[in-house]
């Protein structure tokens, strides 16, 4: 469990936002000084609001972007130091799933060619073997081998995302980084994809790094959670513990803002006012202090580093020990017993349906 598969060390990534004719260009530090270990076999979620740098971090971890500073160590090697060829070879082990199922598949390639491509690039297997593997992958993600000669536009969003997953898994990677893999999907489709991801992870012994902003999804699939704010990790810890008892005020803010789909649940409220500050000129001291309800003088001047609060819990707040922050109350979402029974009926029926599915052809869609 403490086996580290991938490790980020002091990662910094800067972007030039605007380059005037004279003078210094303004720079956005999208990721600033992130240090993070990914453990073999776990699902690590990185969560935060838009613009917090989580997608940049995901790309840094897989060297789709080169870091401005810091290192990403995979299997003891800094991947930034690898040559292009070595890096390409490494991509067999390290794969990426994209957010938008509509734009992340080359519209001019058939589904079969798309899924086969990683195998072909890495010269894995003969052509017939690869075709068999494609068929197998398609079945694994709930599609049919006959789908291989179709083009992506013939599929729905959820199906496309499954194609993206099949493609990412083709080379048998050890670690998969997903950038918002389910956020573009409707709830019912999202659930299907989440299940596939979890099943495949288990079956193939994958390590998953999932970027997301939907806290419920994160709670559901992740073992550990890293919370990001303005390019920094502000809290990192075991998912259940972190949701139950956040240690950083920003985590609390996030959790409190989620509307709960149940009657009588607490009204969603935002503990903070206004928008996050401009990342070009982040505030001094603690970056959250401008919006933090608990901010004190020290927060405005002194920047809190990420420190270990408890085993498996790191936090970047001066007052983490002093604050008693509210987490998610599990009872809030409780349903009446009658409703629970009905859900159980649905669940059962659904399970039966699946069991019968292999023999059952499509139901009333004759036309």
């Amino acid at each position: 469990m403490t086996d580290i598969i991938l490790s980020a060390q002091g990662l910094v990534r800067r972007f030039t936002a605007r380059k005037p004719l004279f003078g210094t260009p303004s720079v956005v530090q999208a990721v600033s000084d992130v240090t993070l270990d990914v453990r073999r076999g776990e699902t690590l979620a990185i969560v935060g609001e838009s613009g917090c740098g989580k997608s940049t971090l995901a790309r840094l971890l897989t060297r789709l972007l080169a870091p401005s500073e810091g290192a990403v160590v995979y299997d003891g090697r800094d991947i930034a130091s690898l040559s292009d060829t070595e890096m390409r070879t490494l991509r067999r082990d390290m794969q990426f799933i994209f957010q938008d199922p509509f734009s992340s598949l080359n519209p001019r390639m058939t589904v079969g060619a798309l899924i086969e491509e990683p195998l072909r690039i890495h010269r894995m297997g003969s052509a017939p073997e690869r075709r068999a593997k494609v068929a197998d992958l398609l079945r694994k993600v709930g599609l049919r081998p006959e789908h291989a000669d179709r083009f992506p536009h013939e599929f729905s969003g959820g199906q496309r995302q499954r194609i993206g997953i099949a493609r990412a898994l083709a080379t048998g990677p050890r670690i998969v980084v997903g950038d918002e893999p389910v956020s573009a999907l409707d709830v019912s489709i999202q659930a299907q994809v989440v299940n596939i991801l979890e099943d495949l992870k288990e079956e193939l012994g994958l390590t998953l790094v999932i970027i997301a902003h939907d806290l419920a999804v994160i709670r559901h699939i992740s073992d550990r959670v890293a919370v990001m704010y303005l390019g920094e990790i502000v809290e990192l810890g075991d998912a259940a513990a972190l949701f139950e008892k956040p240690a950083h005020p920003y985590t609390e803010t996030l959790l409190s803002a989620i509307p709960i789909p149940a009657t009588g649940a607490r009204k969603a409220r935002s503990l903070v006012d206004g928008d996050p500050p401009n990342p070009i000129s982040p505030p001094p001291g603690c970056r959250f202090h401008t919006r933090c309800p608990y901010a004190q003088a020290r927060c405005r001047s002194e920047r809190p580093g990420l420190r270990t609060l408890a085993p498996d819990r790191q936090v970047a707040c001066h007052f983490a020990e002093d604050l008693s922050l509210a987490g998610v109350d599990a009872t809030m979402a409780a349903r009446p017993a009658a409703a629970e029974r009905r859900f159980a009926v649905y669940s059962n029926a659904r399970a039966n349906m699946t069991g019968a599915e292999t023999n059952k052809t499509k139901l009333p869609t004759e036309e």
Partner: protein
Amino acid sequence: MLAFLGRRILIAIPTVFLISVFVFALQHLLPGDPILVMAGEERDPEVIAALREKYRMNDPVPVQYLAWAGNALQGDLGISLRTQQPVLELIAEKLPVTIQLAVMALTIAILIGIPAGVLSAYKKGTWVDWLANIVALSGLSVPNFWLGIMLILLVSVKLGWLPASGYMPISEDPLQSIRIMIMPAFVLGTALAATLMRHTRSAMLSVLKSDYIRTARAKGLREHIVLVKHALRNALVPVVTVITLLFGELLAGAVLTEQIFTIPGFGKLVVDAVFNRDYAVVQGIVLCTGVAFIAMNILADAAYRVLNPRMSDQ
């Protein structure tokens, strides 16, 4: 904005340099010897030698280029081989002519193209749209030199309504000047009108699809306000860019138009200069049009920024 202009101008410098090298090289690669033509029918060897000396034709081409470029930087573009007039003077003389033609053509194009484009977009899929499109495509498809000679044949020769050719400075007799220029301007303007109409139409179509148009309608605004204040205003941003960029097309079109209507402008000057191998004139003109083209490009970008509040404070 200043920084933006500064950067654009800095970037333009190598382009201008490239243009001048390009033109110079091309000129000197052209077959045919202007000196032979200039020497007259007798082609006296002594005269030929003297002319070569005078126009520095015996120097290596790079030396000629440096000499030319050095003078050009000081505002001296040399003299015409054919008439010995200073090139700069020639250009100054021809420029107002072509500008008048261009402005009139552009005016015609704008007056036809933009309303037609708006109407066609608004009535998308109806016969109005269809008709406007067919007319616009016809405008694009008719070779303007052919249109020119057909118009001369019809309007000037058969009907005698308008002069077939010539030029009258607008300062001398404005009415006659416009009378003379209206037919060439129309010929030149048709293709531009078509281009403008198509751009306006597609800009309007994409603007009309945008969310803020729906917002405007949701506010209960009257349709003409939605169309003009909300849609056209935004659609004009790319259209204005297109207008400035049409400048190049305008110049190219002026070449043939001026040829047909014998208008003593830029285009005619350059064609005659190419045929006569009047190096200095060709160089001077292409350099000037090149610079003007780049200036128009910069202007287009600037206009885009001015018209588009999103860009203006960047």
